[in-house]
């Protein structure tokens, strides 16, 4: 039901349509055929203006690659990327350059994403220099530093003189310098201490409000994603397996993978020794070089039904409340224990 070959939906700031990205795998001299990492496979998403779309998933799910494709740090293998109605999938670097003012990215690692040999002032001022937009760069930079909670007088300091949280603020200042429309936040708080994470999340929220920003927020952390996202896409092995409003996802996940993911998150507001029925998946995430056939989740799925799940690829199906999931046996109700999950044909029995 999700957009296939349609024009962007109303209000869609950026849209990806059947987006696919394969990376070649280096092989030995005697290898035959080409092995490929199926990093992103047939992903279609619309990001509405002003919203925060969260993309959540574990290692190798393709969330970072999708984000980089959206801002054209990578070119797609196939499919389209549409920004403000304009197809940017195949533009060359020169044509992309003016667009880069509109879309920016904040990276996960505050230590490697800032050039250690440039001062903070130079780093945050670089966007102005590249796009030649400002006369009084210094003043603008100092305004930005203040806006993100840094001391403008630290203009001449170097990244190593700042803490992790402060460096991330520098990254934010750089990203908002040209007042972009879209900011992709790629795990921006994952490398930070817990007490500092909250500061950065609050800052991002404030800025979104003040500058009318649209965010694509990538994280593996379900608590963080819940806090900041309006809508959430769950990815697994390069595919979107579930798409929903934030509340809808946590209230009733439809895809068994989402259910397991939610269930695996340790709870810190545990009420004493509440017995929690965790759904523990067996095995590890398979390699994206050799994704499983049909439903990519089927080898680990507690609801796996032979003959269906390993044969027929599930399409994204629509549920009520703007909720989509790609599963032949979506989760009927929530919460469910692992035992209950394993029996998709059990009638609506009275709850235990």
């Amino acid at each position, binding site marked *: 039901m999700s957009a296939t070959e349609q024009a962007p939906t109303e209000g869609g700031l950026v849209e990806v349509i059947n987006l696919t990205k394969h990376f070649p795998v280096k092989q030995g001299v005697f290898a035959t055929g080409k092995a490929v990492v199926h990093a992103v496979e047939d992903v279609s998403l619309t990001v509405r203006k002003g919203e925060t779309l969260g993309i959540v998933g574990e290692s190798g799910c393709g969330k970072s690659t999708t984000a980089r494709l959206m801002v054209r740090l990578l070119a797609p293998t196939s499919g389209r990327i549409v920004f403000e109605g304009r197809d940017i999938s195949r533009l060359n670097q020169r044509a992309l350059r003016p667009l880069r003012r509109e879309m920016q990215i904040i990276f996960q690692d505050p230590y490697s994403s800032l050039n250690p040999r440039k001062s903070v002032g130079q780093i945050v001022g670089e966007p102005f220099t590249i796009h030649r937009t400002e006369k009084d760069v210094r003043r603008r930079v100092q305004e930005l530093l203040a806006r993100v909670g840094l001391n403008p007088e630290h203009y001449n300091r170097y990244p190593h003189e700042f803490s992790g949280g402060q460096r991330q603020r520098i990254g934010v200042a750089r990203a908002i310098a040209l007042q972009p429309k879209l900011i992709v936040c790629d795990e921006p708080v994952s490398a930070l201490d817990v007490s500092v994470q909250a500061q950065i999340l609050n800052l991002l929220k404030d800025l979104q409000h003040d500058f009318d920003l649209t965010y694509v927020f990538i994280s593996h952390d379900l608590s963080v994603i819940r806090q900041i996202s309006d809508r959430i896409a769950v990815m697994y092995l390069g595919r979107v397996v579930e798409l929903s409003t934030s509340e809808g996802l946590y209230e009733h996940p439809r895809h068994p993978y989402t259910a397991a993911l939610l269930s695996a998150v340790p709870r810190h507001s545990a009420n*004493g020794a509440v017995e929690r029925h965790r759904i523990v998946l067996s095995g590890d*995430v398979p390699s994206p070089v050799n994704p499983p056939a049909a439903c990519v989740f089927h080898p680990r799925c507690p609801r796996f039904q032979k003959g269906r799940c390993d044969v027929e690829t599930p399409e994204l199906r629509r549920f009520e409340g703007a909720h989509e999931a790609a599963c032949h046996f979506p989760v009927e109700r929530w919460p469910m224990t692992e035992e209950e999950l394993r029996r998709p044909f059990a009638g609506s029995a009275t709850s235990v």
Partner: protein
Amino acid sequence: MAATPGSTSTLLEVRNLTVRFRTRDGVVQAVSDLSFSLRRGDTLGVVGESGSGKSVTSLAVMGLLNRAYADIEGEILFEGRDLLKLSPAELREVRGRDVSMIFQDPFACLHPMYRVGDQIAEAVRAHQDVPKKQAGDRAVELLGAVGIPNAKVRARDYPHQFSGGMRQRAMIAMALVHNPDVLIADEPTTALDVTVQAQILELIDRVKREFDVGVILITHDLGVVAETATHVMVMYAGRSVEQGIASEIFGSAQHPYTWGLLESMPSVERKLDVLVPIEGSPPSLLHPPSGCAFHPRCNYRFEPCSSKLPSLEPIAGGHLDACHLSPERKREVWRTKIAAEIGAPA
């Protein structure tokens, strides 16, 4: 938190541990006056952020700190013997055999160029004089015990052929080789995906029961602690600020730093109206603040906090915390503010 007198199940007792590093920039107060105990069957969750001293504590227990630049005071009693007074040879007997450790990064103890099975077999022969074949069999046995499927075949793999979760399991297998009494896990799941994290935490719990050990679990993740720990110690700037039985701490936290951690963490269970961060950053351990190290960031600080160091005191019949606020005030804040915010019972 201290074991009852005469208890035979206390494995480890740390008393007034202080660790100072002599560096070019001055003396770093990594750990100050730390005391705790661990019994068989306990899982002690040590919670703290960067610079809290939690990792240094575990290194001190394992005898892995270089005394050339680390000054260590206090006592670390393992089954009655003070580990700090042992000779290097005696310490080598204890380390790996009686007290064992796993790390966040499996490559800290898995050599990338040797087969996994061989490395575990090497660990066997470090403390036991057994033939290679027997050590190899034991390695396979342990890999199976920690849930590696097809252990005999996988033992011949190199670490890079294992996934992150499997490497972590291999590291746990290596730590169990000599049936240790104490297992220290330093951020064992931080680098893992959450579904794998769940598996590893279950494994550590199962290991604790099957091998009858005491576990020290070091983490910054309060969620992990809430789910798996029997006891909790919250560390800040090298000191314990709150410690006790886990259900009590999560049922009624007393220290403003613990409150801050609980309030600033987003929850997967509900969207909080507002995340209340702890302003500022963890302090420098070269020049720690005067009085209570947390006071510059504390919303509840008052007159004595900047000059007088609070001592770790028990509240009536409950856990310990180091804060000048009165017990009534602490209870009041918990009940009226914190518990409501995080959805815990008041």
